[in-house]
């Protein structure tokens, strides 16, 4: 790997993960470490705008089995900002349509000499299976309703930037918890860093079973609103369900849309977040999405910072493991 600028510092000896598959298995220290390095990369690149060369000679493959523009672009830009090359492989739906297993697809791409695979797939666990079957590093870019670790990390970084810390904050995830990988990654990450997490949404989309993990479950946004420091508004994923989980979008918006009236009953410094894409008028009204409490665009910038850190850390751990195995 090329020399790392002083502002980033040496590769952290306590980071040993070649893959970033989920936040459930990360320790609080590991999460803090990624956040810290993301902040350093953000600063060293003038807010994720200028280039470094720490990943020169490395190639990152975006292996996307599900439509995505935002996450794929974010990973590509992050790799290029660090001087790496990227290659995109997209296939809508499963590789099944071509009669090839997804593991074969990934092995084919690996054989082209890439160093890291970012995988997005509609099926939970696919990144885990790839990590078991490939030599290269794997970063989960979202697997079904399971996890989206870089999204969770960028949400947490955005909160930390505004508030300085996560511990003690009350963060509500609002909406379609059942089908949200963003919710799961946030739950694990926020809990580990000491936040109080509330899951809020219609009872068909929020399971009471989450309570056993020390999470609060609420059905009424109005009830919890005055206590919240952060609201993360999740999109209703109609495409992932067979029957409608609520009678109408109108009824959902009446109960859960974050609008000016609700904002007036919230804390003065409440942060409004959304992982996007947002359905304006459903989860959030335009005036709130674009208003002073919104950190939605900061989330996007922080996505680059988190992905730079994740790429650098996983590739570094893989290089370290390779050197050690040669000894």
């Amino acid at each position, binding site marked *: 790997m090329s020399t790392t600028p002083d502002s980033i510092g040496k590769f952290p000896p306590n980071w040993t993960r070649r893959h970033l598959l989920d936040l459930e298995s990360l320790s609080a220290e590991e999460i803090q470490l990624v956040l810290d390095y993301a902040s350093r990369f953000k600063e060293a690149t003038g807010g994720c705008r200028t280039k470094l060369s720490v990943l020169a000679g490395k190639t990152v493959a975006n292996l996307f089995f599900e439509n995505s523009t935002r996450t794929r672009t974010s990973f590509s830009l992050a790799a290029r900002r660090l001087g790496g090359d990227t290659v995109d492989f997209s296939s809508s739906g499963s590789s099944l349509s071509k009669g090839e*297993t997804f593991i074969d697809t990934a092995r084919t791409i690996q054989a082209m000499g890439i160093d890291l695979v970012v995988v997005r*797939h509609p099926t939970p*666990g696919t990144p885990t299976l790839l990590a078991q079957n490939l030599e290269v590093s794997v970063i989960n870019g979202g697997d079904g*309703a399971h996890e989206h670790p870089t999204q969770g990390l960028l949400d947490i970084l955005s909160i930390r930037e505004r508030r300085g810390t996560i511990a003690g904050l009350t963060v509500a995830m609002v909406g379609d918890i059942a089908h949200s990988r963003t919710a799961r990654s946030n739950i694990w990450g926020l809990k580990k860093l000491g936040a109080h997490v509330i899951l809020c949404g219609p009872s068909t989309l929020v399971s009471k079973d*989450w309570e056993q993990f020390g999470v609060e479950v609420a059905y009424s946004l109005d009830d919890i609103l005055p206590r919240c420091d952060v609201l993360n508004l999740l999109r209703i994923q109609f495409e992932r369900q067979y029957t409608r989980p609520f009678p109408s979008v109108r009824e959902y918006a009446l109960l859960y849309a974050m609008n000016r009236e609700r904002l007036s009953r919230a804390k003065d410094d409440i942060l409004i977040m959304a992982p996007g894409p947002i359905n304006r008028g459903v989860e959030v009204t335009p005036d709130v999405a674009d208003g002073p409490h919104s950190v939605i665009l900061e989330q996007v910038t922080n996505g680059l910072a988190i992905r730079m850190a994740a790429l650098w850390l996983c590739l570094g751990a893989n290089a370290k493991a390779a050197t050690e195995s040669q000894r």
Partner: protein
Amino acid sequence: MSRLLIKNGRVIDPSQKLDRITNLLIEDGRIVGLDVPGDSGAECIDATGKIVSPGLIDMHVHLREPGREEDETIATGTASALAGGFTSIACIPNTEPPIDTQGTVEFIHHQAARADNCNVYVVACVSKNREGKELAELGQLVKAGAVAFSDDGAPVFDAELMRRAFEYCLMFDKPILNHCEVRELTRGAVMHEGTVSMVLGLAGMPSAAEDVMTSRDIALAAATGGRIHIMHVSTSGSVDLIRRAKTRGVRVTTEVCPHHFTLTDECLRSFDSNYKMSPPLRSQQDVDACIAGLQDGTIDVICTDHAPHALEKKMRELDQAPFGIVGLETCLPLVVTQLIQPGILDWPTAIEKLTINPARILGIPKGTLQVGADADVTIIDPDVEWTLDPQKMRSLSKNTPFGGWKLRGAADTVIVGGRVKFKRAV
């Protein structure tokens, strides 16, 4: 005249409440007698330290032929059965084409005869083409030799058709074997619905999907006087329903697979498709209920639901991979390791659920060592310890979650119709 003497084994035959160390004589393919002297001039097998059981019966096997010979054939499936200690199996009709005509039943019998491994009994379809719309020609199928009816893989979802099937089968005294699952509740699901599926973001099959149909089938059997056999029970709710129905005198029987008394949904955390089956691996509470059902007799039968799938199919994403695992060669050792060794079941009770109970449900003259019976005998080594290497299994498919498991107990010698068809390599 061929004579074979099995000497000094612990002969366990629940059909005669027999459990003692003695000699068993076979002549011309039939059981001739017990307690014969050891010097009767016959060819001898020394069974000292071993268990001599009626040939084991697995009433729930997917042989895949015709139609999916890349997964299993009748020849490889029956070879796998022998290696697992089974002398008779019943094959399930979800083949391509399904077994819903006399011709297909006869094809199975012919292929089984050509393979010349173990006995194969045919479970035929309840409905034409397994579509659940109209009854298959059950009378013709009985004539061809079908021993029971099932649309397994697909539940008989139409309650009216199920009722008719029960009523119509009264003429033949054949049981209906149903896979109980309300499909509206399991769309897109790959595992048990519970905390684990919630955390993994995988669509789950609620226990209620099984219990609702178990309950329906019990009610229909009670109303018609028909015979229902609930396949591969997996929930505490269904075990309870069956227990209560039996006390009321409903003609209901049931079976459980080794994976449902051994593993839980926690296994899915590995995302390994060898833990994907239907019904799914459920919670510890459900495992405990299955074990209690085995102990108190609510669960009559241990079966495998042997479901071979070629590697390339199981290597797919978890939601694309097919349901099911192979089981013929792991059933007996899992019974020993998980039930007998920990003292959950004693040997006679376990053997009863692997021999005479399935024989009675299917109405076949097997599962006994009574004088005059077909000489199907399984000699079991109860103490041998070994590690499962899936590549060494006889089944064409290797989709088992038990690879690398240290197991105890194995079939040592398997005799079908008086002939030694399998001998375990030492």
